[in-house]
């Protein structure tokens, strides 16, 4: 039984309760009064990036639209500008809830696989936890080749002038591609992150089981 079917079975028709218990700050969802100030304040929403603005997501949660909410790409578009939190008349931590829902959808395997933010987050995490430092060259190249080799070359060539300029200005070192430099105690930092992951994982697993 997958993680998803297990929790879905546990909460049956009460998606709001599932969100309240499983999602970070999810117990705030019920407090939304549907004024829409969050949607109006969102800088990304001007490009119609959001299929469902925050207050609509909250209403969908209350209406029990589990599949639609958790597979949505909407909450992944949040840029953490905190405009909505500042403006919410009900003081709902909307930004945190957006990340909470995204994290939960990822945890139970419903998040859209190739959603750009989600892909970048995974790439970034792997990149920085490996050596304890972010390798900018590897990170950006990883993004260019997200959709395959040919498109990676194509996208990369668009930026070649800037890249050459940065190399000449000593802001970009091509040799970082081979190994690159690391933090002092690479093993220590990996151990620390592993422990943190274990604690977090145990906590969430207990919640999902309990």
């Amino acid at each position, binding site marked *: 039984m997958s993680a998803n079917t297990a929790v879905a079975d546990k909460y049956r028709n009460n998606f*709001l309760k599932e969100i309240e218990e499983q999602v970070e700050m999810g117990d705030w969802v*019920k*407090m939304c*009064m549907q004024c829409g100030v969050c949607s109006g304040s969102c800088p990304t929403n001007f490009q119609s990036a959001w299929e469902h603005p925050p*207050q*609509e997501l909250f*209403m*969908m949660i209350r*209406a029990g*639209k589990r599949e639609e909410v958790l597979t949505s790409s909407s909450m992944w578009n949040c840029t953490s500008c905190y405009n909505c939190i500042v403006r919410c008349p009900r003081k709902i931590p909307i930004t945190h809830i957006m990340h909470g829902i995204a994290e939960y959808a990822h945890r139970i395997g419903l998040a859209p696989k190739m959603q750009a933010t989600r892909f970048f987050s995974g790439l970034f995490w792997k990149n920085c936890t490996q050596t304890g430092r972010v390798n900018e060259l590897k990170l950006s190249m990883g993004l260019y080749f997200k959709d395959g080799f040919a498109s990676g070359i194509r996208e990369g060539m668009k930026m070649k002038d800037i890249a050459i300029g940065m190399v000449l200005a000593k802001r970009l070192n091509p040799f970082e591609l081979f190994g690159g430099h690391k933090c002092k105690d690479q093993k220590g930092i990996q151990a620390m992150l592993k422990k943190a992951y274990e604690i977090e994982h145990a906590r969430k697993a207990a919640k999902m089981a309990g």
Partner: protein
Amino acid sequence: MADIKVAAYICKGCGLGERLDADALVKIAQKDGKVPLAKSHDFLCNADGVAMIQNDITNEGVTHIMIGACSRRAKTEAFFFPENAVARANLREGVIWIRPDTDEARETTQEMAEDYIRMGCAEVKAMTAPTANAAAGSSKTLLVVGGGVTGMTTAIEASKTGYPVVLVEKTGALGGWAAKLYKRVPVHEPYKSPADTGVGELVSQVLGDSNIKVYLNATVAKTDGAPGRFVVDIATESGATHTEDIGAIVQASGFTLYDMNKLPELGAGKSANVVDQAGLEALAIAAASGDGVIRRPSDNQPVKSVVFVQCAGQRDPSGTHLAYCSGYCCNTSIKQAMYFKDANPSIDTTIIYSDLRTPGNGEDFYRSAQEKGVIFTKGKVAEVVPNGATSTVKFNDLILGDTDASILDVDLVVLATGQVPNSGINIDAPAGVEEEGVVQIKPISILNLTYRQGKDVPQLKQGFTDSHFICFPYETRRTGIYTAGPVRRPMDIAQAREDATGAALKSIQALENAELGRAAHPRSGDLSFPKVRLEGCTQCKRCTVECPFGAIDEDEKRFPVFNESRCRRCGTCMGACPVRVISFENYSVNTVGAQIKAVDMPDEFSEKPRILILACENDAYPALDMAGMSRNEYSAFVRIIPIRCLGSVNTIWITDALNAGYDGVMLMGCKSGDEYQCHFVKGSELGRVRMSKIDDTLKTLNLESERVRDLEVAITDIERVPEMINKYAAELVAVGPSPFKGF
């Protein structure tokens, strides 16, 4: 009218002395005004000036005073001579402040001032000092009709103030709707949970008060008389009738819930598990006396899911149901949802609303309900389909754009149906005709007034009792009778208690003024009242039909019977009277007519037209005064006469003015119609109906229809009114001078 002595005083203060030739004005008063005693003073409203006038009253036997100074709206305390007839010529706001201070304008400005002096002298001679109504009653007892929260609060508040109260309740117990509630919406911090109704305490307070006499199972069989001297017959269930002397009346007859059986599409009548808000209160009370579990009416099973349908039969634009929002039902549904959540948080409670309106501190209450897990869904319920013991609620989800949303397996559906006022008979409804789209109200009279115009107080279009909703929301259109609580407008307990307190104080004010024989409102303190010369009356009944306040009855010979204490002194009867036998001591067909005729009319070659303006003293005249204060200039050719109301304008004034050679007449009154602003509710409307027939008069005089202009003026039209005057003056130049000049 024997032995009147008139004196005229011209003030030279506030720049009047510099802008006007005061000596010439004194001479005008003596020569044209024929005033034996005329003086000017440098500063008339100071102690010395007032002492001069007082001295003339005491030593010279002056009875009538004409003051040429500022507007009659200014310095009323300084120029207060209650024993004398006083007229004011408005030289400051009406002349120098609206005219430019230039050499060219000097001549016309002086002419304007001279005319106002002539008009003031003519007016004061046609006046007498008013004396109070002698037919005043002195009963101080308050009648409260209705023993609900509103009625009981009124009784308690009036009793605390020291006035005896008679309380009449139709049913066998006090308490009204509130007694049928399990709990009420909280009115104290922290506004988080339903509170006790407090009705029991109110009831025991009423019953324990020796100043309050309670009639249960009783109705008002007859109300006769006027403020201060009402005689009320109270019929009790046993058949006995008690008669009480009453000073003023508060009608707190409350509301009835809109009949949910008119909403079959929402499942009403189809399933016992669809109830209105009162139905749920009954279930909650039944639960509280048992194990605390609210049960389905159909099979007594515990309710596991409940849906509240807001605006059921309300805010309906189609006209089938109530058009308005009752304002209290959102808070009530929130409260009722808490009945379930407080008892058992696992019960699914959903409130489907289209706009959640939570007055008072309802926002905190709303938040508390969200914290307790009540689900709020924005949508419009299309249908409730009962299916055995449960129902399916189909609705249009307005946030998610889902027109086909539904909630399944609902144990109980609660419809928030709203308030319909118990305002008695609609006395303005045409007999026998049921107007389509208008909510029918039980045609049982509440007050059974013996008034000529009908048994109950007049209503607004939704059946709520009519009042001047902008300026005097408490007042009904029957002096000394106040409505309070949901019969006046939809409201909750907290608002009703406030309303009740206000009505108690208002009615005390009314009965005290009635005893002194003066008006309570809006001309508060006015001692004048209409006097009729019955020997000239033709029994045409226009005054009795038109009086906006039902003050005039008819005797068996169909002569009008004036009930002065019911009168608000608007003068609508005076304007209506075709034979002009109705007048006030200080305001009559004569006082205005004399002013119209007193104006010095230049000949047709002088290029000085004359425009008469009859301006409502409540809105238009203050607007003109304020135009003066803002130095908004207007034509020097107008002569303005304040009138009590457009309704008091008698068409003879228009005819007289046109015959006298005025080039045009402007009437300035308040907005009429459904959104009236007239202080006398119907005055401006009736005045306009009369004036609409002025075209015939113009035709018989062979005059252009432009010569009479009706203008709707609000008190805020400080800039617009001078513009309209100047525009009209320019139009009249195009029309040409009146052919009646020089006759």
